[in-house]
């Protein structure tokens, strides 16, 4: 399939609803033949720690009880599974923000293996040929 431009996602939030939405975007983009670069900062990076991926990361405040229930009832695969599917499907690269890693005092070895490497912010923009989506 033709590559019609790189999708650049900067993930900041580490709540399960936003990670889920970002994973759906990534799967869709990968299915449509787009290269996706995902840059993990702050709480999103924390959520990708190998020992924390599957823990409960909560949801955004606007979800409320009703929103949380609706999300759980929908029965989507976990966001980490969707990211793995996306990687299997196409060109999806996931990078940890070097600065956020340092903030947490962790290394790439502490992260889930689906994270491909560590990038400084300039490296992310070096590859981001179009707009950046911040989630």
């Amino acid at each position, binding site marked *: *399939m033709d590559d019609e431009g790189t999708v650049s996602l900067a993930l900041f939030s580490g709540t399960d609803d936003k990670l889920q939405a970002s994973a759906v975007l990534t799967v869709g983009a990968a299915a449509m033949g787009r290269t996706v670069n995902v840059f993990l900062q702050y709480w999103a990076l924390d959520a990708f720690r190998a020992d924390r991926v599957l823990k409960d990361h909560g949801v955004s405040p606007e979800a409320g009880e009703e929103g949380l229930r609706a999300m759980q009832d929908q029965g989507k695969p976990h966001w980490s599974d969707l990211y793995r599917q996306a990687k299997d*499907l196409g060109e999806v690269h996931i990078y940890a923000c070097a600065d956020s890693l340092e903030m947490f005092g962790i290394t790439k070895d502490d992260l889930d293996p689906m994270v491909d490497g560590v990038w400084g912010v300039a490296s992310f923009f070096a590859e981001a040929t179009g707009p950046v989506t911040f989630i």
Partner: protein
Amino acid sequence: MTTAAEVTRSIDARGMPCPGPLMSLIGAIREGTVGDVIEVLSSDEGSKTDIPAWLNKAGHELIEVVPEDGYSRFVIRKVR
């Protein structure tokens, strides 16, 4: 004209939320051989636009979309 008898694989993705039905179809296309006719049953509203969009992009044929009671039946031919 394609009849039900020609369907080589049927995927019942009813009840699966987006992007489940599309992912199931992509998996079946990957595993299949050229000429396979794959039927996907989906109750996900997004499938109505997503499956045709993906087929157009990936270069496979949408033979027909049949509205059923509470779901749609997509019939697809693997072209390449």
